[in-house]
């Protein structure tokens, strides 16, 4: 606790303002006989309580690696990652995670899969049942408690994965391209649902995506990363009035700016 307040004091801000605080984060992959690959170089990022942040960038920019470092699945980095004032040491139930594949266990029913999120949480059996049921309802899967994962559509399975990520009541939900494998219509539908889940739960969310449209529609802030080496290039604040109209001029203007920052379209195209 002492060390925590010290670090917080250095920035003259209490940690309560920063659910997640990343300072000078670098990560290298070294392949024997080759120059070590700098996947992330000197990244700084804060996420406030209840904030929705998206990471976008070309493939290979380290956005998934950054998410895995925050989740505690990967380690071995330079710099600091603080979560609620503590340095991250491995995975924890205080950070939920949703992968691109739903990763529901095929031998467990939907309800049992979601219950896995509480396997090592301190809740009574009754509280567990209540939490599982309320999260099934939250993602709109009521009536499918006893269904096997293979009986669910891709979109339903991914909702199940979101429920499993949320059931232990984390204060940060990490999502690694959660809608990447879904068809366009289901994806738009689930984006809307994710937004209402976020509003209902009031927790912080970090979304990794390559879909700029999705990032702007969902986020308070869009963080653009670049590759070689992987680094944070620009951060866009998204006003709520921009997000409200997905086909509006402001939305499109911002989208072009983000794409430009990603290096997807050149300046000249943007001017024309």
């Amino acid at each position, binding site marked *: 606790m002492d060390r925590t307040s010290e670090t917080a004091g250095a920035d003259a801000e209490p940690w309560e303002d920063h659910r997640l605080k990343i300072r000078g984060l670098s990560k290298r992959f070294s392949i024997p006989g080759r120059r070590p690959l700098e996947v992330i170089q000197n990244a700084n990022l804060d996420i406030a309580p209840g904030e929705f942040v998206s990471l976008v960038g070309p493939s290979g920019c380290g956005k998934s690696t950054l998410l895995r470092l925050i989740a505690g*699945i990967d380690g071995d980095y330079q710099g600091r990652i603080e979560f609620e004032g503590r340095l991250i040491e491995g995975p924890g139930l205080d950070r939920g995670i949703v992968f691109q*594949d739903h990763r529901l*266990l095929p*031998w467990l029913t939907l309800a049992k899969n979601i219950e*896995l999120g509480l*396997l*090592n949480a301190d809740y009574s059996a009754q509280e567990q049942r209540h939490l599982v049921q309320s999260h099934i309802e939250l993602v709109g899967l009521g009536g499918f408690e006893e269904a096997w994962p293979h009986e669910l559509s891709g979109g339903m399975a991914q909702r199940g994965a979101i429920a499993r990520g949320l059931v232990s009541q984390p204060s940060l939900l990490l999502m690694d391209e959660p809608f990447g494998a879904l068809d366009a219509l289901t994806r738009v539908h689930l984006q809307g649902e994710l937004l209402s889940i976020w509003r209902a739960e009031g927790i912080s969310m970090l979304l990794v995506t390559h879909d700029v449209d999705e990032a702007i529609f969902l986020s308070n802030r869009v963080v653009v990363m670049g590759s070689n080496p992987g680094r944070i290039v620009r951060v866009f604040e998204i006003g709520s009035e921009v997000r409200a109209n997905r086909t509006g001029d402001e939305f499109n203007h911002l989208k072009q700016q983000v794409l430009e920052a990603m290096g997807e379209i050149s300046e000249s195209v943007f001017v024309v």
Partner: protein
Amino acid sequence: MDTVSQKGRQIGLAGGVESVESARGLSLTWVIGTILPLVILASWQLASSREWVDPVFLPAPSTVVTAFWTMLTQQDLILDFLVSINIVIQGFVYGAVAAVVLGIAAGLSKRFEQFVSPTFNTIRHIPGIAWLPLIVLWLGLGAPAKILVISKTVFFPVFLNTLQGVRGVDEKYIELSRVLKMSRFQLIRKIVLPAATPSIMVSLRYAAGLAWALVVVAEGLSGLQGLGFLIFRAQGLLLTDQLLVCMVLIGLVGFVIDRSMYVAERRILRWRQGFDG
């Protein structure tokens, strides 16, 4: 929410339709499956009544049925049958349990696999029957020697399939177990064991067949009880009708064992989206 619960009901409905269809399919399966046995039985009866074959070599089906009744009522057929079944069940259970436990251990630990695999691979190649003479010397002519030999025969296919099943667990599920903070035991119980179950079930079904076949040979070679003993005694005494009774019985029991293993497999693996052919 309404549409969602409606969808739930639709799934239930679809399940109902499916089971009606499978019931119809089942009766058709029975009809198709019984054609060939009936043809064989009819040719057998024809060959005997036209006296194409000497009754000493092939008695008529009716004679075999009479012999069955005599063995059942005046001799100890039931006792011999129970002796054989008892040996098979014990040998199967001991062998299978040891195989699953050691298979998981070897699957989880490369060191343990390296420790046991040269020994196991050598023992594996000595057939169960080749072990029998030595084991009979140690344990005598009774049931324990046969149980041990059957356990050995059941052990290896199940051990190898369990090992392979554990090694085949998707890396992504292991990562999930870390995210969910699962303990080593929870990992085995919730992920490794279920993931390896399809592979284990296949080997159990195969091993059950091996065990039943082996008990007949083992009883023929040692001891004075069991279906295997009866079959070799009938040959020695030229009681061809009794010999056929034993053969048919062995075949039918083998069939029942395989069907029950299949049903158990379907039940245990009902979470799997399978191709039914």
